[in-house]
C-alpha cells in the first residue's frame, strides 16, 4: 500500500514538474502577443493578438489551478503515510 502511494506521489511530482516548467512559457507567450497587439497598427491584427494573449493567460491560469490541485493531492498522500 505504502509502495503504491510512493509511486503515485512520484508520478504526481513528475506532473507537477512539467507544469511548473510550462507556466513561465505561457507567461512569456502572453507577453509576446500583448507586445504584438500594442505594436500593431491594423485594428483586426490588434484584436487577434489580444485574443491570443487572452488564450495564453487562460492557459497559465488553468496550469496554476492544476498545480494547486496536485500540490494538495501530494500533501494529502504524504500526510496519510505518516
Amino acid at each position, binding site marked *: 500500500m505504502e509502495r503504491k502511494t510512493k509511486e503515485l506521489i512520484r508520478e504526481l511530482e*513528475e506532473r*507537477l*514538474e512539467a507544469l511548473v*516548467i510550462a507556466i*513561465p512559457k505561457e507567461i512569456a507567450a502572453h507577453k509576446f502577443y500583448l507586445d504584438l497587439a500594442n505594436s500593431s497598427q491594423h485594428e483586426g491584427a490588434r484584436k487577434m493578438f489580444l485574443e491570443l494573449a487572452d488564450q495564453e493567460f487562460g492557459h497559465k491560469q488553468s496550469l496554476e489551478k492544476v498545480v494547486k490541485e496536485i500540490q494538495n493531492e501530494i500533501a494529502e498522500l504524504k500526510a496519510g503515510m505518516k
Partner: protein
Amino acid sequence: MKIGEFNIHFHSISAHFTNALYPVAVLFLILFKIFHHDSFRSTYYYLILLALISTPITFMAGLIEWKQKYKGARVKIFIRKYTGGVILMGAGSIIAVWNYISPEIIKESGLLSFIFILLNFAIILLVAYLGYLGGKLVFGGTH
C-alpha cells in the same frame, strides 16, 4: 532576472562562462599530461580559479531566477540543479586548494594523482548534467 523593463536571462549568460571554463581547464590538464609544458599547467590552474569565481555567481543567478520565474517551486529539477551546483562548488574548491597546496599532484602518477584527475573529469560530467537540466527547462523534455 528583471532589470527595469528588461528581462535579462542572467543565469543562462553566466552559466555559459562556467560551463566553458571547466572543460577548457581540463583540456589544458590533458595537454600538460601529454606535452609536460609548465605553461599548460599554469593555464589549467588559472582557468580553474576563474571557474571557481564564476560558479557562485551562476549559482546565485539561478537561485534568483528560480525565485522570480518559477516562484520558488520545490520540484525535483530545481533540487537536482541546486545539489549539483553545491557539489560543483565543493569539487571545484577541492581541486583548486589541492593544486595550490600540492602543485606536483598533476605531475605525479600515483593513486592520489589518479583521484585528482578523476575529480576533474567528474566535474565535466557534472557540468554537462547541469547543462542538460538547464536545457530541459528552456526547451522542455520529459526525461
